[in-house]
């Protein structure tokens, strides 16, 4: 049987936790119990792995190709033995990753092809790895496996020949099989993180980084007292703090802001994203519906509309953002429909006004490529299906797009409104959903072949054309929504937005299964999907050691995390000079003005210098941006004599100031100061060397200058890659 957190060990953990709470002796100990990494077995006398060739059972050194050819792929496979593989029910090889490092410190990704309990020794599993195509005869490598965000020890294996290789990890120990053999833990248990006790540890900081715009003192105390599941329930039921509904203004800004009679800041408020950006940050800082805001923003980055292509009018973009807020905890089918009929989207991707003659393919393509199914057919765990030649299989082709383009015809803006509201100027209606044109000649009413060969029938004689098109749209959206790709595709994209850029396929599969069925036979239930994402063992845990784990904080998140962690007072304008949102623009994230439908950064951006790891947010981390992130922190903490962003009427009525007085009170003891910042910002994972450097830097500042000591400590953590990458 697969090993897992057993009822026995879980009960003992609960006992341990309660004892800990009494003794003030918590944290690391319980952590390791809850989420240690796997252990690869080694020789009794060295870190050399117990390893065999998968087919011949020969020991190392392992040739690059298999001595016996079984298929076209002759790359060699090796078998390792591991314990403490706490696999969940249904998990297999797709929960594991593996990598090797050679003597030149080059890293290789080995594919985990199989994991299975060893017959008769069920406490131990055998793990089959495929050597990567790019590895040569490099000699010894240090090899590790990763599960649920936790890495194993690293063991030594000879590839091509033995000898050479990197030196052992400092502090590495031999990991021979224990004797006598431990008892196998018999039954895979349900996910332990639904137990409220888990929220009392440092993991609660991580949880709030994923579920909110940043952990505040009060939210931390609250989640620690009620646990994750109860917190999620509260958030699912919290009232929406929505974006303000603006009047619709004329398209021509010289009419909407007539010279001489326009109110102050007219162009700023009516023809720029400014009011929405301000509202975004104000809500992010104080709104109680934090989870809804996070999910809504994630949806904005998946189903993109950009203000730059909507005449820069907040009254046109606002209804789209309100739609995402409203639907974030609803059903994904509803999201697809409401976004499709949103007039802002209609304008952005050209479904608005699309007609039977030469229908425009833009919306047809992007609703499939980006909003729902993606370009490749997917397995239930989100990995691409491959054909017999090993090639990916397209989800749709140009003909499918042409057919969908013909579905998306005939839709126009709802009847115009007046400006001012009781006035006489007609203005375009970007508030109400699009409607079918009164000109039925614009409708394509022939039959269409949709995904998987589903046919939307042609209109029948006598059928009302508007009823036909309304119904046809439902058929088309149902067709997309029910495609098996949607679960894994949307689940993976949401995980990447909220938790980690490179989720294991097993994690994607668990969330996708929830997308496919929330347990009550409902597909697309966003609440269930969000809970599955945030309560998953790969999301949870006090510290993640998997080298692939984490995601770069995007600029808006860096801003909100800093402001919320340090209890800031702010008017919401992220600037320190006259420029509106200048510091945010400098960091290359122009809020609500993403450059293309591929969002602020490409979801499939591959991080240079890694083995093809995804890191979407790295797409906007240029060399200049690296400094500009640090310069933002500098402006917030140290410039302006430490007083934050100064007041500047009209854009910054109050400015922005952090409040770190509780930390400053500890500045007399640099170690204590850094420890408490470590808990708040790094959830207790700051490495000893990093901590020592910062403590030294703080100690070197005169103790009389408590403010500078505190600012320096916060600056050094906030600008560090260890903080910039949320893990």
């Amino acid at each position, binding site marked *: 049987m697969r090993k897992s957190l057993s009822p026995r060990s879980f009960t003992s953990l609960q006992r341990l936790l309660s004892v800990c709470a009494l003794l003030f002796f918590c944290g690391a100990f319980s952590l390791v119990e809850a989420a240690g990494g796997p252990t690869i077995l080694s020789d009794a006398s060295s870190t050399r792995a117990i390893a065999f060739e998968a087919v011949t059972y020969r020991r190392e050194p392992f040739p690059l190709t298999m001595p016996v050819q079984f298929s076209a792929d002759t790359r060699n496979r090796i078998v390792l033995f591991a314990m*403490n593989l706490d696999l969940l029910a249904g998990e297999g090889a797709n929960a594991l990753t593996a990598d090797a490092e050679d003597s030149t410190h080059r890293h290789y990704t080995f594919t985990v092809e199989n994991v299975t309990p060893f017959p008769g020794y069920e406490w131990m599993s055998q793990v089959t790895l495929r050597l990567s195509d790019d590895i040569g005869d490099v000699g010894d490598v240090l090899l590790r496996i990763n599960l649920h965000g936790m890495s194993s020890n690293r063991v030594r294996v000879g590839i091509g020949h033995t000898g050479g290789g990197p030196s052992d990890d400092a*502090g590495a120990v031999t990991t021979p099989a224990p004797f006598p053999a431990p008892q196998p833990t018999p039954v895979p248990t349900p996910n332990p993180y639904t137990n409220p006790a888990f929220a009392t540890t440092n993991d609660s900081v991580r949880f709030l980084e994923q579920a909110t715009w940043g952990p505040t003192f009060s939210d931390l105390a609250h989640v620690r007292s009620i646990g994750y599941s109860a917190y999620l329930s509260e958030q699912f039921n919290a009232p929406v703090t929505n974006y303000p509904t603006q009047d619709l203004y004329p398209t021509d800004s010289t009419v909407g802001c007539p010279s001489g009679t326009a109110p102050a800041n007219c162009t700023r408020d009516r023809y720029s994203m400014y009011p929405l950006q301000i509202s975004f940050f104000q809500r992010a800082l104080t709104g109680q519906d934090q989870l809804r805001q996070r999910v809504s923003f994630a949806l904005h980055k998946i189903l993109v509309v950009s203000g730059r292509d909507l005449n820069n009018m907040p009254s046109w973009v606002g209804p789209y953002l309100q739609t995402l807020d409203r639907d974030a905890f609803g059903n994904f089918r509803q999201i697809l429909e409401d976004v499709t009929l949103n007039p802002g989207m209609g304008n952005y991707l050209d479904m608005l006004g699309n007609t039977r003659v030469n229908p425009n393919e833009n919306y047809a393509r992007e609703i499939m490529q980006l909003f729902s199914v993606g370009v490749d057919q997917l397995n239930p765990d989100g990995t691409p299906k491959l054909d017999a030649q090993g090639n990916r299989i397209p989800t749709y082709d140009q003909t499918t797009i042409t057919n969908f383009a013909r579905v998306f015809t005939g839709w126009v803006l709802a009847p115009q409104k007046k400006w001012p509201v009781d006035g006489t100027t007609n203005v375009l209606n970007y508030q109400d959903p699009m409607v079918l044109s009164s000109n039925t000649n614009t409708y394509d009413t022939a039959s269409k072949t949709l995904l998987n060969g589903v046919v939307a029938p042609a209109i029948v004689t006598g059928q009302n054309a508007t009823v036909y098109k309304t119904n046809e749209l439902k058929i088309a959206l149902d067709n997309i929504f029910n495609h098996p790709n949607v679960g894994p595709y949307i689940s993976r994209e949401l995980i990447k937005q909220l938790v980690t850029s490179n989720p294991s396929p097993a994690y994607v599969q668990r969330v996708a299964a929830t997308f496919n069925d929330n347990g009550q036979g409902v597909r697309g239930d966003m609440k269930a999907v969000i809970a599955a994402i945030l309560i998953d063992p790969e999301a949870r845990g006090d510290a993640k050691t998997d080298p692939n784990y984490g995601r770069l904080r995007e600029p808006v998140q860096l801003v909100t995390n800093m402001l919320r962690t340090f209890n800031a007072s702010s008017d919401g304008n992220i600037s320190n000079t006259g420029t509106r949102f200048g510091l945010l623009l400098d960091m290359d994230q122009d809020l609500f003005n993403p*450059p293309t439908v591929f969002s602020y950064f490409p979801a499939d951006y*591959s991080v*240079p210098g890694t083995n093809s790891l995804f890191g979407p947010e790295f797409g906007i981390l240029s060399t200049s941006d690296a400094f500009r992130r640090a310069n933002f922190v500098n402006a917030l903490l140290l410039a302006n004599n430490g007083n934050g962003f100064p007041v500047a009427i009209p854009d910054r009525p109050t400015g922005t100031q952090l409040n770190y007085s509780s930390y400053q009170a500890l500045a007399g003891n640099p170690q204590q100061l850094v420890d408490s910042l470590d808990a708040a910002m790094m959830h207790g994972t700051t490495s000893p060397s990093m901590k020592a450097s910062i403590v030294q830097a703080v100690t070197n500042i005169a103790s009389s200058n408590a403010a500078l000591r505190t600012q320096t400590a916060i600056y050094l953590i906030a600008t560090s890659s260890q903080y910039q990458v949320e893990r």
Partner: protein
Amino acid sequence: MAQSRRSFLRQTGCALGATAILSSIEKLGMIGALAQQSSNPDNVAADYKALVCIFLFGGNDGNNMIVPLDSEFNAYTSVRGVLALPQSSLVPINPISGRQFGMHPNLSPEVANAAQSKGLLDVWNQQKLAVLCNVGTLVQPVTRAQYQSGAGHPYQLFSHSDQQTQQQSSISNGPAQTGWGGRISDITGGLNGTVPLPMSVSVAGSNLFATGKNTRLLAISPAPTALNSVLVLTTSGGASADQTARRNTLQQLLGFDTSSFLVKASSDTMAQALQTSASLATDPTVGTFPATSLGNQLKQVAKLIKLRDALGMKRQIFFCSMSSFDTHTNQTGSNPTSPASGGTNSGNQGSLLAQLSQAMKAFYDEMVLQGISNQVTTFTLSDFSRTFAPSGSAVGTVGSDHAWGNHSLIMGGSVRGGTFYGTFPTLALGGPDDTDTRGRWIPTTSVDQYAATLATWYGLAASDLPTVFPYLGRFASSNLGFLG
């Protein structure tokens, strides 16, 4: 001694904690190796050469950039309808290769409107500008019949993200992790010797094109940010000694915790910023550039090129870009030939082409002024061209959809210009070059061939071509001859 599974686990967990930290310190020394190429001093180039890529994001409609003025013009107008440019507005260019063509008026706005800054006609007439016809992503040469039978399709044809990737990677059968500019840098890095900047520089953000296996590009802001302001770490608060100490600690932290690949990637970027900032300490003066997005990017490139001797750079690859070429609607506007014709509403593509041509011309003039126009070659790439048949029907909403083979511009003193390369497609819906019936031209020249020609001029050895362009061998020629 019996050991329970859990106590075993605890021990290992503790050991691993210490392990991760110490191994990261061990790797501290690696960070310095990133920005610069290691070099063999014997290979350092004697001359200077640069490639400047201008990527037109969104898919530039080549069908309206270069238009036949001979017998095919009627076919052009009848298919394109409201997208068709008036014959009189086109700027005639008669390539040496025969036939008669016209450029989009905004590729040389000064022809119709002397008040406009010059575009590219002068450069064409000096034979320093060439057009490469119907080039695109290909996995192999392919005919219409083969295409329609399902053979020879690049991965995710017609998709923006995938086609952008393939244009930049020259790998058309799937996703890629390196760009061809980056792979050229990987191999030719030694030509630079030991220099303070990486070979690849982007003034348009991170991108695949200039990213190699070992090459990490330098991505800096365009003008108007002064060159000595693109990499400035602002330090406030405390005495100057405090600020220096803080910066030193920031730098020290980059060496820790690099066992996390994403932490290391972030730290490498910061390390590169710190290393490079000192070398960009001046802001050289260059000529006048248009105050447009591309104008400002090329201005920054011109400044970096002006510093080439001071920095010791012998080979450089630059990346610039423009966006918004995805003209599904309002491609031509009410006045498609403005600003050349003096109007304002030229639609989405017209204004972009004016920006492109005026910025390229300013850059060419600056290179002449610096005396190195023969050593700098500028070229365009784009996702794809657009359907010859328009999409949409109502005035103001007409545009075009995603297509395939496209025309590219190549400019520089070493370009054998004033003529066309490749094969101009037959502009017929459902014709021999069409994938279907909307005018998505099947490329007759591959990106691989286009790129290999540029790479060969740049100094990549013939023996290295297959490494950088693994599928080049599938095509007839590895040198299209447009560079002397």
